[in-house]
């Protein structure tokens, strides 16, 4: 199971977390990954920046996720995390 926590704190909210959450929900359901990817929110992880939303994937913190670079993020980080799990 891949745990994905999207920051919904003030700063990330204004950087687009509602849209990022919607994209995550769409990708998860379109790829039938409801049982493999668990989405949840989180409050400030202390990594606020000016470029985008903070997303934690299995305890690894990624900053700067935006709707524009979401697809890349999904393909690299989430798919990689899923593969790593299957490999175990």
């Amino acid at each position, binding site marked *: 199971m891949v745990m994905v926590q999207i920051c919904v704190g*003030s*700063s990330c*909210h204004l950087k687009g977390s509602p849209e990022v*959450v919607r994209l995550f929900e769409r990708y998860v359901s379109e790829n039938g990954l409801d049982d493999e990817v668990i989405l*949840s*929110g*989180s*409050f400030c992880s202390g990594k606020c920046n000016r470029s985008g939303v903070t997303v934690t994937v299995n305890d690894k913190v990624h900053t700067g996720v935006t709707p524009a670079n979401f697809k890349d993020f999904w393909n690299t980080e989430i798919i990689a995390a899923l593969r790593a799990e299957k490999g175990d």
Partner: protein
Amino acid sequence: MNDLCVDIGYKSINHEGEQLCGDHVDVVEQGENSVVVVLADGLGSGVKASILSTLTSRIISTMMAEGLTVEDCVETIAATLPICSERGVAYSTFTILHIVENREVELIQYDNPLVIMIRDDVNFDYPKTEINVGGKKIFKSVIKLKENDLFVAMSDGCPHAGIGKEYNFGWKRENIADFMETISPAGYTAKTYSTILVDECNRLYGGKPGDDATACVVKVRKRMPMNILFGPPSNRDDANRMMALFFSKEGKHIVCGGTTASIAARYLGKSVKAGITYDGGDVPPVAQIDGVDLVTEGVITMSKVLEYAKDSIAENKLYEKWSYGHDGACMICRLLFEEATDINFFVGRAVNPAHQNPDLPINFNIKMNIVGELSECLKQMGKKIKVSYF
């Protein structure tokens, strides 16, 4: 001292085409637990009526709150009110609700429709004594208060609603009493009850009121303390002290802010579970901590609460939004505006480095302004507010 308190709300609509209302409601507090509410209806409508009713309600409420008798008030009004040049009389009717120590209410009524009293959700016919003051017939009653009692004072514009349109003789007092009986169990605020009643009058008038119509509702309720934590303390070492004070308070507890929520969770030895459900609006999702009644994001949510609060004391147009919505701001509104009577703010003055970004519409000053403005609005709603800074 008992644990009752009163919630007072009123609303007016103006005679069609008039910019001023000829009815006026004044609320003057008399110490901690007593209050004088006066609803006055000036002769006619427009400017003249507005001056008459404003003078009448102001004079009576101020004099009563200072402990003077009804007789003194009526004499003063008779000697003070300007005389209408067309009709040759100085005239304004009034209803006084004098709440004494949140224990009993003294009703003094002169020529307005008689106050409707709803007790245990049914119309209650209270005893009245007729007295004569300077040739004026005045009804006086003293009633012991009970939880959930509802007193509805009206100007004659309410029972006149719908004359010749919906009803031949208007919306009779007993029909209004029936109407109030039906909505009484819903547990709304006084402001909401008065709004519902006046909106119904406006509907009966076909949106074109033939008279100024005002309803003033006094609702007796139990005190309900509410505590709200907003922001981490400026000095980290104060966190435990702040949490200890906050969680030791009686009543519900609301925690606003991400960092604040983690501090509260650490203090309680629990975890923060943040949600990702957006309720259609632009307010961040709420979270959960065991032992806390509500956990929300900070500044964005509170800005929204302030927006609703400002509207609620003015036109009350966004009522339906916050009263049915599921986002954090709506939930805070319901707890603060409807449930709470006494609100304790615990405000932390730490500066969030993430917010000191010129690109963001949130910063430390905005946060402090929100607290100031919001407590001002809540005071106007009749809440008792205490703000502590850390």
